């Protein structure tokens, strides 16, 4: 059975070119970039080339690129660095729909006495910029708002948000893990102070991330050790993955147009077909302000895990915000924050495409999903002629 992978917001395949570029560093060129001898020391040139390639994708200065182990580390570092750099300030502003790398760190910080403002979102997943403005106080150390939401793909107006925050001279961080490689970013234009990205979301390997730190931003390291990364993060560099991420960024730049035309077209085709074929299906998230590769659809009166298991039987990989799939008892905090009713939140499915997704795959999924929903609805006690009348 062929695997149809529509879960690219969870992780992506490694681009074959990226893997080729990585291999020498996993075999012969195993030297430590910090070493004095050429065998190791020359490896630093490769790490620095990766730094330039990544800076190129987001139009930053290579000196502003700090390598980390993942998006979560980048997010955690940004939050803790801001608090340590401004020890008098004890307030953070974020949103209710952030990734757990931000949300759970904020929960942890609130237990330690910091106050956190979680901005609410409307039914389309958007925040109210006036509420953001009102929430900023002289005590605010940092505002952290994601660039694009991992579950719904909703893209936030980071330019406007950053402007509001910078007018008040407060640090601004954005978790751009889902956006980098899918949307063009220009950090010379965008006044963000810190930005997180993750390798494995853009066809680089797992285990490497970046925290962009604008030059002049106060910074305190999170991982303390050797002098690597100019003393900003201890620990021997994950060279092969860093090299891979560099090339992945270069390749992502080349595919940016394709991502926003062809991938988007396939996403729209899938979305429009499912919404029209399956009754009582609802799109979650803002239709326009959205990543080109993501669609999140709720199928009312059925539960997400069942849908995923039946799709799995057909080789289709997707994910769900249902409680049963997240290992928790409550459904997706993102959909709950958007006020998606429980009838729909439990049956939400996210399909996330990539540049490797083909038309034939999308056609197959369009044929596969409706009978799966029908089958589960036949078992559901909530599905009947009454339900159709409700909507």
């Amino acid at each position, binding site marked *: 059975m062929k695997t149809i992978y529509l879960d690219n917001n969870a992780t992506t395949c490694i681009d074959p070119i990226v893997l080729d570029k990585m291999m020498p560093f996993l075999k012969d060129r195993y030297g430590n970039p910090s070493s004095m001898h050429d065998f190791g020391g020359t490896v630093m040139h490769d790490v620095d080339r990766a730094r330039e390639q990544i800076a190129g994708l987001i139009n930053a200065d290579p000196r502003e690129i700090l390598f980390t182990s993942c998006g979560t580390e980048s997010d955690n570092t940004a939050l803790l660095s801001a608090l340590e750099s401004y020890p008098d300030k004890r307030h953070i502003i974020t949103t*209710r729909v952030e990734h757990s790398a931000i949300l759970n760190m904020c929960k942890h910080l609130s237990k330690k006495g910091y106050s956190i403002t979680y901005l*609410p979102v409307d039914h389309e997943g958007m925040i109210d910029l006036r509420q953001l403005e009102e929430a900023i106080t002289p005590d605010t150390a940092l505002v952290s708002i994601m660039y694009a939401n991992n579950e719904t793909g909703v893209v936030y107006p980071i330019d406007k948000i950053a402007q509001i925050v910078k007018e008040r001279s407060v640090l601004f961080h954005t978790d751009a893990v889902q956006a980098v490689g899918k949307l063009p970013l220009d950090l010379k234009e965008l006044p963000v102070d810190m930005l997180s990205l993750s390798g494995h979301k853009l066809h680089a390997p797992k285990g490497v991330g970046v925290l962009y730190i604008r030059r002049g931003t106060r910074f305190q390291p999170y991982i303390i050790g050797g002098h690597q990364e100019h003393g900003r993060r201890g620990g021997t560099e994950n060279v092969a993955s860093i090299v891979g991420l560099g090339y992945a960024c270069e390749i992502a730049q080349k595919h940016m147009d394709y991502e926003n035309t062809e991938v988007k077209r396939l996403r729209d085709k899938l979305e429009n077909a499912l919404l029209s074929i399956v009754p009582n299906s609802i799109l979650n998230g803002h239709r326009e302000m959205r990543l080109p590769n993501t669609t999140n659809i709720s199928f009312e*009166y*059925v*539960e*997400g*895990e*069942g849908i995923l*298991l*039946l799709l799995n*039987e057909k080789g289709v990989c997707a994910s769900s915000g*249902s*409680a*049963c*799939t997240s*290992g*928790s*008892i*409550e*459904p997706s905090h993102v959909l*709950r*924050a958007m*006020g998606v*009713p*429980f*009838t729909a939140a*439990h049956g939400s499915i996210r399909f996330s495409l990539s540049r490797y997704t083909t038309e034939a795959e999308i056609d197959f999924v369009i044929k596969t999903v409706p009978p799966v929903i029908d089958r589960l609805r*036949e*078992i*559901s*006690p*909530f599905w009947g002629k009454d339900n159709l009348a409700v909507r």
Partner: protein
Amino acid sequence: MWDYTDKVKDHFLHPRNVGEIENPDAEAEVGNITCGDALRLTLRIDKKTGIIQDAKFKTFGCGSAIASSSVLTELLKGKTVEDARKITNKEIAGFLGGLPREKMHCSVMGQEALEKALANYLGEEAPEEHTHEEGEIICHCFGVTDSLIARVVRENDLHTVEEVTNFCKAGGGCGMCHPSIEDIIAQTHGAQATQIVETQKKKVLTNIQKITLIQQTIDREIRPQIQADGGDIELIDVVGNRVLVGLRGNCAGCRTAQFTLQHAVEAKLRELVDEDIFVEEVRE
């Protein structure tokens, strides 16, 4: 990824006895859509012999909820009512070759539906809606009673709140009931329960004092929770023991608002202000 046995997969992919018996001799519905799973069980019972001739189910829920329901109907067919009453959640899970710990509540749901259906057949008083069975509601997020918690603790030898959540969902929401669940675990295992301090007799309040106390209780104890869910609550009027409130934001028009009013707002006000209070929603 959940680690399901082949038996669970088989019963999920090929569920037995899906549907509804017309004019059933016994029927029950447990769970609701808010909680993420629900089961409707209908039985055909031979009144002379007391043998269950047919059983059908409809389930909203995850793979193991559907598999547990399917297996339950298979277990029931051909059994006498008396024997059927002895089926436990352990048996349901055992028949499936085991369930992941996080999914044990699916087997408990099957047992609950069975109990409720047989009580219905025998003309016993059916447990109230929204409560899994009779008793005091401990977990307001999922409407789980002390008696159900005590039973899953006893029958499955549970020792932590997390285990209780796995088996009956209690404690899986806001987490406010964790101390109560710990008490129930301690009591059930015969240990000395944490000493319960008798709440002091509340003194008689003037009307102004009472309204102020209600407002304070809403502000301190109730509003933060409701706001965390994207809603809001407003005190509109107090007429004797009738407390009139308005629900705003996400709560307005929410299907579970009535549940929230009774089990969160009213319970809190009864606990902290006056036992005779009842809450009503005023819609705009």
